[in-house]
């Protein structure tokens, strides 16, 4: 029953996209409502799955394996399922997408296509989070490329063409490297089992790599190369310095709703993939490279924050803050402690809400002031107090104000890194302290930006701006409320992820 629901969940948006296809493009309101209904149904489905999720099980739940096609020497299966890692991300995906659809009602240009692509994108993202077969994972990963290319390329800003191609090629190379590594994992897995019963299943491969029949095949060097391949592949998506350069372009050029999805969900696929494939199949290598991951995380935090500090464009500032915040994810998973890993998953979810809210606020401001340049704004709290208030709240959440979700995830990640075993990360304490400085920088650039945009003397031309429309309250209140709930009552999330996280951490005996 539940397993079938996962299949329905993945294909529902695709069916919705096909339905939208049949509606004449003049019926804008019908199209908008249908898109909302479809993603709303997906949301309801995920909530039901969330409700039925067994918190006590560490492995895969609701799994289904259907034979898909046979190459003669290899059977490819449609294997899906969820665990404590993918469950919260599924909910994040449907929540943020539904809210971003509300945020996209202001789009007037080629409405029908916009929602068709959004729904296909939703299918792809949900597919990534439920796929357990590497082939299927790659398929869904690639499936997100084409809709995103169109969404940025048609509805984007002035440089949309450049941004969409850059996105396409960077993430295309990322998924290319990912699949190469998958192929290598598959062949090495086959060799390690003396060519008896191998598959593309990540679950099966994790077992094979844990207990190979022929351990000599899986030498340290081979395993290290495999892990580095996965690290690079997912680093492009996450993104990790120095593979991050596609992100500012894509974010800045994308329309508001797409930026929300991009920052809120798409980046999380990188973090998720790293944990699922990298830590799932090669936990010992993950532990070996813990220092590297922690240092990359540290660079992300500091570098992203420093660049955010000097941005003159508000949206670019938020984009760089995303890079900075993804560093915290790396820091958390590198620590290999219970709380660190939990903090990382928390950060994936929490940043999903907060960054989506920030991008929405920037978009709403831009729609009114027609500028994103920080220095040209000012005093907006007087002309649009409600919007300015929400933007300030979003910034506070991003900084990590206690009571909001950002605080919980950063706290957990830092507890993790400070508690990391010295065998894994020799200089954990130093890394933690420097990363702490990065967090102070976050406060600096966000507060400074808020001060320059919302406070100060009001500009003449911004005197009579309309404040929030009723429809805008949905994403604003929704996202802020979600961040607040996670901040006040984190148990609601930790409850779900706990068993799985303990299982991941215990694989290296840490």
């Amino acid at each position, binding site marked *: 029953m539940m397993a079938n629901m996962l299949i329905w969940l993945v294909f529902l948006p695709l069916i919705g996209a096909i339905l939208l296809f049949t509606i004449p493009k003049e019926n804008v309101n019908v199209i908008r409502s249908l898109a909302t209904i479809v993603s709303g149904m997906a949301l309801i489905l995920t909530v039901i799955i969330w409700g039925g999720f067994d918190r006590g099980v560490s492995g895969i739940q609701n799994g289904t394996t259907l*034979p*898909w*096609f*046979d*190459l*003669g*020497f*290899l059977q490819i299966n449609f294997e899906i399922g969820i665990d404590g890692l993918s469950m919260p991300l599924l909910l994040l995906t449907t929540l943020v997408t539904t809210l971003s659809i509300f945020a996209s009602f202001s789009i007037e240009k080629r409405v029908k296509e916009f929602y068709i692509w959004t729904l296909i994108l939703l299918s792809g993202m949900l597919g990534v989070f439920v796929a357990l077969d590497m*082939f299927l994972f*790659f*398929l*869904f990963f*690639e*499936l997100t*490329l*084409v809709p995103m*290319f*169109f969404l940025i*390329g*048609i509805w984007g800003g002035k440089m*949309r*063409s450049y941004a*969409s*191609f850059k996105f*396409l*090629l960077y993430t*295309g*190379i990322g998924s*290319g*490297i990912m*699949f*190469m590594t998958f*192929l*290598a994992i*598959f*062949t090495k897995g*086959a060799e390690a089992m003396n060519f008896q019963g191998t598959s593309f299943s990540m679950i099966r491969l994790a077992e094979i790599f844990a207990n190979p029949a022929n351990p000599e095949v899986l030498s340290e060097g081979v395993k290290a190369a495999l892990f580095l391949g996965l690290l690079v592949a997912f680093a492009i998506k996450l993104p990790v310095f120095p593979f991050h350069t596609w992100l500012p372009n894509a974010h800045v050029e994308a329309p508001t709703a797409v930026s929300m999805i991009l920052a809120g969900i798409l980046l999380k696929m990188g973090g998720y993939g790293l944990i699922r494939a990298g830590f799932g199949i090669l936990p010992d290598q993950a532990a070996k490279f813990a220092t590297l991951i922690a240092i990359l995380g540290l660079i992300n935090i500091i570098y992203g924050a420093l660049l955010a500090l000097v941005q003159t464009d508000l949206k670019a500032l938020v984009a760089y803050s995303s890079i900075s915040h993804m560093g915290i994810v790396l820091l958390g998973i590198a620590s290999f402690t219970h709380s660190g890993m939990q903090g990382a998953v928390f950060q994936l979810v929490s940043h999903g809400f907060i960054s989506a809210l920030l991008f929405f606020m920037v978009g709403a401001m831009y729609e009114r002031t027609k500028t994103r340049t920080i220095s040209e704004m000012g005093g907006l709290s007087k002309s649009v107090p409600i919007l300015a208030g929400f933007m300030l709240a979003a910034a506070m959440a991003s900084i990590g104000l206690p009571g909001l979700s950002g605080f919980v995830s950063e706290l957990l990640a830092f507890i993790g890194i400070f508690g990391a075993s010295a065998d894994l990360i020799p200089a954990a304490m130093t890394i933690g302290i420097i990363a702490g400085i990065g967090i102070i920088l976050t406060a600096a650039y966000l507060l400074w930006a808020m001060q320059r945009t919302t406070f100060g003397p009001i500009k003449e031309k911004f005197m009579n701006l309309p404040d929030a429309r009723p429809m805008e309250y949905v994403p604003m209140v929704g996202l802020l409320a979600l961040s607040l709930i996670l901040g006040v009552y984190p148990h609601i999330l930790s409850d779900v992820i706990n068993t799985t996280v303990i299982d991941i951490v215990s694989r290296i005996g840490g």
Partner: protein
Amino acid sequence: MIVLETDWSLMTPEISLAALALLVFTIDFMTGIHGKKPFIGRLAVLSLLVTAVLVILLNPGGGSIGDLFLVDPFARLFKLIILIGVAMVIMISMYYLDRNPEVYQGEYYSIMMFAALGAMLMVSSADLITLFIGLEILSISSYVLAGFKKHHRHSTEAALKYVILGGTASAFILYGMSFLYGLTGSTSLVEIGQAMPVLFQQYPALVGMSFLFMLVGFGFKISIVPFHMWAPDVYQGSPTPVTAFLTVVSKLAGFAIVIRIFTLAFGFEGIHGEWSFILAVMAAITMITGNFIALTQNNVKRLMAYSGIAQAGYLLVPFAVVLGDFSSTVIVFYSVAYLMMTLGAFAVITLVTEDSGMTDISSFAGLYYRSPYMAIAMTVFLVSLGGLPLTAGFIGKVNIFILAAAGDMLWLAIIMILTSVVSFYYYFGFIKQMFMTEPRPNDKELFVPGGLLTVVTVSLAVVLLLGIAPNLLLDIFNQYNWMPSFN
């Protein structure tokens, strides 16, 4: 004498196609040289489809006429691909000839059918002589077709280049074959294959020479690097449907015969190890060259030529990795995908370039506003050529990746994956023109004639269906013993 005792019914499809081609030829004579003759086009399509049905229905068990002519699953599948491919090309041609009345129409269709006949003979032959006859019927028909717009300089140039270089390639092939005949005294591929293990021990240099000469000649026919130089010029100058024919039918038939010869004659274990590496390197160079040069092209037909070169590289990969049923399954699957996505794309290209009168990529500007269905279909074909999900191209390509990795040629898979990413850039360049650029001011809504609509719809349906349910085809393929005469 075996010739009299053999079961000539094995050749029924070829014989009926030959008869039908002659019939078309005769009807053309009787209806005058000039003027539009759409009915001949329809008759040609019908003939090809009838022949395809004959291929499906007759001789499901296979068989052979002496050692000359084989009917095995490999041959039958490629015959189907050829017949359906040519039928689709003719449907595209009917629109093209309607726009270009100066082309002699009857001849065009009958020559196209003879080309199909040559290709069919080729994929069925198990003997160097039958093979060469089939190859030459196909090649000579192709030379003529390339120059069909004889009052246009580019078309004449294309035909001349093609005939000179193609003739040279045929000479190379013949010379390579002569070594084999000299060593074994036989033209039968099966007998040559049986003698090969011993011969290779005794005369490695001669066998190697023979192999290399044939590789050069066939490499030209299937346009793999470094024997690809003719392709862009010929593809650009030829009438667009002929370009489609060359890219798809000629190339796939060439592939089939390369696989046949190299499997039967050079297929035994010891020697495959020797040349598989050469082929792998050539596949790699072909993928890299094709994809990177395609980046710089603005002319649609040249771009498709380089894209076709890159695709030939992909098709070469499974063959370089391993011989046998597994790689045949992967190759035939990708051939079907390639046929559909390329011909679908060419249908749209013919429509757009004929409408605008130019072959620059900017003729696609704003196609989405002018004909949404064509733009969407073209997007699916391009996405499939690029190898992105929910299309046949994705499944086909990933199968090749997996085969290469499983066959211990991970490096080749890696090159293929990386060059595929490069190809996104030019395939999506089309998409950008169609969806993200405004149409030029005097471009009106495009009318899509029925023939093109059929081709596009059929290709679109197959590309999507195989992308979602590849098991439909793979389940059938897995039961086949592709070449019973090998092993």
